[in-house]
């Protein structure tokens, strides 16, 4: 009411020009540069939360939850490699670079993964001695920048991952800004200290799938056909990309959806390019099935895996394993509320801190500042990661047993239903309470 008793119009903010949108417009106008941040897509997209397991009843009987065995082992790279990667659990640690992460953080990832019986992965910038020492199974990424790439480290790897793209920025290259280019990082990458490293988005010596086939041949010849060659792609056209990766000779395809994280790139890229992880899996599996190579070429899914339920759902849709990055960082201490006072000083809050490119991470993970990095105890952090991986596994086993399966790989689409039309269409599982999903062909 105004002072004459006339009701006032209630101020209404635009659903289009929201406070965050307006703030970003003002920030862009003030600086002239796009927003850069780390992490994956924050927007709501159809995800594993939109699926449910049906569980067993009369038509299927369950396994005893605490006594009957439910296997979790997986072998990656059975197609061509003499020495496939044998893992105790179908959950691996995704590629994250030394440079993006501190040395103690990389060590913690290696320790945790090794204790849980799984692999970890290098990143842009090459392999450090610490991560090789502390990782019982180490996947060596072969990236467009080729920073730090050398044949000695290649021969030390348990697998090679040719990175074509990643879910946070399919079609984009790496980014490591000058604040994080320490002497050691600069030396590993053969670049001046303090410059902004904006890596190439394409490999320098091959372009299409026919070239990739020859590149993979070269890598196999250098390593004596001993270790598997993975091909990692961001989620864009998963049916064709998976088929072409297989045609090029991949032993394993790693497929990363848009919720998958990155150390740094443009926010507009993260939020507007690529497919949700959920939308990637079925086309990828279909490609493998059409080629008669499902399970012979293994499929690793990443992007937004948080719980054992997510693991189980990805496997039920046809993946052989999953990979985690952001969740592993959280497990070792990223965005921990115990640093809230310092997050506030940085203008953010625990759970929202994503300026990983600035190198001022209070948790000592996404930094090259020696004082901050020293905050992370790699032994303790590695133990937390190991615990978390164990919990993911136990949760996935719990669900698998309830669905009547004695191996996580026996989970199948028929164990699932969807809560939304979108999820039903993407996962090709029936909308809950029906036997129908959008696009289902009449039989």
């Amino acid at each position: 009411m105004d002072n004459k008793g006339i009701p006032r119009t209630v101020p209404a903010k635009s659903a289009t020009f929201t406070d965050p949108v307006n703030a970003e417009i003002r920030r862009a106008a003030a600086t002239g540069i796009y927003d850069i941040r780390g992490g994956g897509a924050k927007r709501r997209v159809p995800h594993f939360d939109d699926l449910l397991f049906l569980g067993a009843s009369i038509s299927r009987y369950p396994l005893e939850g605490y006594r009957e065995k439910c296997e979790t082992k997986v072998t990656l790279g059975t197609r061509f490699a003499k020495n496939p990667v044998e893992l105790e659990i179908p959950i691996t640690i995704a590629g994250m670079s030394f440079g993006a992460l501190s040395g103690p953080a990389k060590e913690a990832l290696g320790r945790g993964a090794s204790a849980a019986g799984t692999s970890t992965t290098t990143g842009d910038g090459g392999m450090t001695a610490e991560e090789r020492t502390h990782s019982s199974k180490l996947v060596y990424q072969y990236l467009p920048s080729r920073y730090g790439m050398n044949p000695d480290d290649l021969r030390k790897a348990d697998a090679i991952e040719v990175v074509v793209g990643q879910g946070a920025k399919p079609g984009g290259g790496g980014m490591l800004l000058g604040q994080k280019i320490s002497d050691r990082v600069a030396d590993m990458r053969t670049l001046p200290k303090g410059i902004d490293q904006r890596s190439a988005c394409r490999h320098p010596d091959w372009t299409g799938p026919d070239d990739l086939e020859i590149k993979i041949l070269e890598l196999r010849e250098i390593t004596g056909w001993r270790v598997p060659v993975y091909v990692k792609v961001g989620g864009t056209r998963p049916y064709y990309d998976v088929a072409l990766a297989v045609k090029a000779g991949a032993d394993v395809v790693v497929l990363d959806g848009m919720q998958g994280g990155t150390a740094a790139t443009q926010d507009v890229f993260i939020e507007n390019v690529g497919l949700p992880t959920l939308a990637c899996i079925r086309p990828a599996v279909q490609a493998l099935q059409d080629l008669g190579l499902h399970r012979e070429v293994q499929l690793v899914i990443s992007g937004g895996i948080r719980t054992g339920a997510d693991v189980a759902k990805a496997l039920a849709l046809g993946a052989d394993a999953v990979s985690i990055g952001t969740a592993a960082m959280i497990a070792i201490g990223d965005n921990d509320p115990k640093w809230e006072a310092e997050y506030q000083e940085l203008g953010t809050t625990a759970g929202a801190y994503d300026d990983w490119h600035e190198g001022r991470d209070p948790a000592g993970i996404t930094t090259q500042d020696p004082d901050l990095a020293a905050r992370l105890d790699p032994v303790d952090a590695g133990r937390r990661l190991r615990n978390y991986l164990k919990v993911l596994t136990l949760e996935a086993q719990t669900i698998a047993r309830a669905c009547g399966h004695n191996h996580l790989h026996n989970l199948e689409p028929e164990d699932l239903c969807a809560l939304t039309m979108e999820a039903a269409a993407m996962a090709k599982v029936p909308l809950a309470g029906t036997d129908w999903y959008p696009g289902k062909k009449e039989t």
Partner: protein
Amino acid sequence: MQQYDLEADGLRGLNAALQAQTAGPEQTAWEVLNPRGSHAIAVGLNAPLEVTVRGPAGYYCGGMNQQATVRVQGSAGPGVAENMMSGRVIIEGDASQYAGATGHGGLLVIKGNASSRCGISMKGIDIVVHGNIGHMSAFMAQAGSLVVCGDAGDALGDSIYEARLFVRGSVKSLGTDCVEKEMRPEHLEILAGLLERAESDAKPEEFRRYGSARKLYNFDVDHADEY
């Protein structure tokens, strides 16, 4: 000299034999017969071997070489000597795209012409091309020297970092952030050494030097239009 018939005995056997051989009492000179454009010839070597390929090679010949000298008596396909660490790769004929890509060390000599993207993302390798090079050569070149006795194509040295470029002939155009620089005595000395090692009779004084203006090393909105 040991001989290996690639057509008859296959690629795996060749690379396995070369990779297994170390310097020492063994015979270190090898001759590869009938290469017929095969890919990945003599890759991943790590010993001071002398390998002569009698004919044209396909993709990635001499890839990731360490210590060895690989000589191709013919042309070479894309990515010759890619990611070389040390040693020498010598191409008697022409080289295709991406010659010496990402190489960290060693010397690549191309006695004919090199196609586009020669020296792309080079990280310390030295490359001497007796003839011409194609467009986008030395793109994002980080370290090392690229010597061109002939002409260079469009966009030479685009987004270059600290690599040194020496061109005797014309440059069709320079890429973003690549500029001509003063040729100082230390550069003439480097150039003279490279030309001698590459068996070129070109004179260092005939070359011009190009390198990074270093304006794009850190983002500046005023330079955004240059990309």
